[in-house]
């Protein structure tokens, strides 16, 4: 079990800035996130969309903001645990014990939940029988493409992931690419490759249609798709790949005994502590009178929460407010002379 001054859940902009605010106060932290990289919604939902309301930054993209924040917290050498979801939070005397989906365990007096609107998970197919085949013959991501050799593969989706995997897997398998509209959305080069392979008979495009049912008991035998004009078609299928993007799920957070208001966690606006001592919620996931879901509000929230974290992690020390411009100690922590 790893000990740390603060466990930060969520590596979005607010979680990243929490590392900074704790770090300049001399507190170490670890960060856990369900995605495979830092940045949260900024990276997953709008990496290329400009943001115009970060103070003193007239314009920057989600990607740029994330990179800058990572640069800003570099001096603290914080350990990140990515591709992991926090499954369990329990109390052990004055500390909180956190267990993740990768069986990591952490102990800390403080938890800062900077979880946005929850963790990102793939959007699943809506037909009931889909569940039976999941992770065996139905996948929402490709981890090892070797397992998809010499198969009949039905790929759902009209965006980059669906197109890219259709191209890649068509090298050694039969591909049906199925989309609810006639138009696909992808890089022009990818689109022309797809059209070429369709002519050569290596990929068959099925549009506009949607999945009607999956047939088979232990294995998938075939799928039935339904066209907009009402016609149906059976397609011989061994494997289904589905790329309908990610959705945000609150996940286990709702089971930790925190006071919730719909999908948000109630906090006080003095130090953003929840109803549980030592558990804080900041950023989009917290709610208090006047709350605005802005990145800049999240930055303010972690600054205040980090003071209370200090008091809990260093009960025998007195907290002293300091400016980064004049504090030698802070400058040392930042690696400046």
């Amino acid at each position, binding site marked *: 079990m790893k000990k740390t001054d603060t466990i930060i859940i969520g590596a979005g902009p607010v979680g990243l800035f929490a590392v900074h605010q704790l770090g300049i106060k001399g507190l170490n932290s670890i960060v856990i996130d369900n995605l495979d990289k830092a940045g949260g*919604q900024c990276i997953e*939902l*709008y990496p290329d969309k400009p943001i115009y309301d970060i103070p003193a930054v007239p314009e920057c993209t989600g990607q740029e903001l994330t990179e800058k924040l990572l640069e800003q917290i570099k001096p603290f050498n914080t350990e990140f645990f990515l591709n992991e979801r926090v499954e369990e939070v329990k109390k052990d005397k004055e500390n909180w014990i956190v267990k993740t989906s990768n069986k990591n365990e952490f102990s800390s007096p403080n938890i800062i939940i900077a979880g946005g*609107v*929850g963790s990102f998970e793939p*959007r699943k197919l*809506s037909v009931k029988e889909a569940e039976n085949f999941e992770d065996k013959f139905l996948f929402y991501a490709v981890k090892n493409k070797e397992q998809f050799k010499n198969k009949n593969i039905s790929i759902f*989706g*009209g*965006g980059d992931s669906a197109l890219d995997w259709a191209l890649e897997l068509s090298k050694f398998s039969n591909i049906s690419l199925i*989309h*609810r*509209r006639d138009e696909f*959305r992808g890089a022009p080069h990818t689109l022309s490759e797809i059209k070429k392979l369709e002519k050569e008979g290596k990929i068959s495009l099925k549009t506009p249609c949607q999945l009607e049912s999956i047939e088979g008991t232990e294995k998938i035998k075939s799928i039935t798709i339904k066209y*907009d004009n009402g016609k149906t078609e059976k397609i011989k299928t061994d494997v289904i790949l589905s790329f*309908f*993007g990610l*959705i*945000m*799920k609150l996940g286990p957070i709702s089971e930790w005994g925190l006071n919730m208001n719909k*999908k948000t966690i109630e906090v006080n606006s003095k130090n953003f502590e929840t109803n549980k001592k030592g558990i804080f919620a900041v950023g*989009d996931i917290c709610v208090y009178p006047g709350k605005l*879901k802005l990145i800049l509000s999240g930055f303010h929230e972690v600054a205040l929460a980090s003071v209370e974290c200090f008091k809990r992690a260093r009960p025998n020390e007195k907290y002293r407010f300091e400016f980064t411009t004049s504090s030698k100690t802070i400058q040392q922590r930042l690696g400046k002379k």
Partner: protein
Amino acid sequence: MPKITYQDNEGNSKTIEVDKGLSVMEGAIQNDIPGIDADCGGSMACATCHVYVEEKWLDKLPKAEEAEIDMIDMAFEPKKNSRLSCQLIVSDELDGLKITTPSKQT
């Protein structure tokens, strides 16, 4: 104030007056209409405010931009009359609009 009718997938409906300038999504959230989650808060990034628009209104609404159409691909059971309610801004022209929420959003 324009009236908007929100109907759930079982046919229960509620008609409310929504301020001009608000989105159909905001009208639902402010009046505790269930069935519209709007996880991303209206930035067209999540498709959890997905609704079905009554057919006769389809042509009267401003056309969906590409980004909205792409996002509807990600919605739960999209249909021809699918829209994201965060992109439908209430105006006098939309007085009487009726939308139906899908059986679920995710």
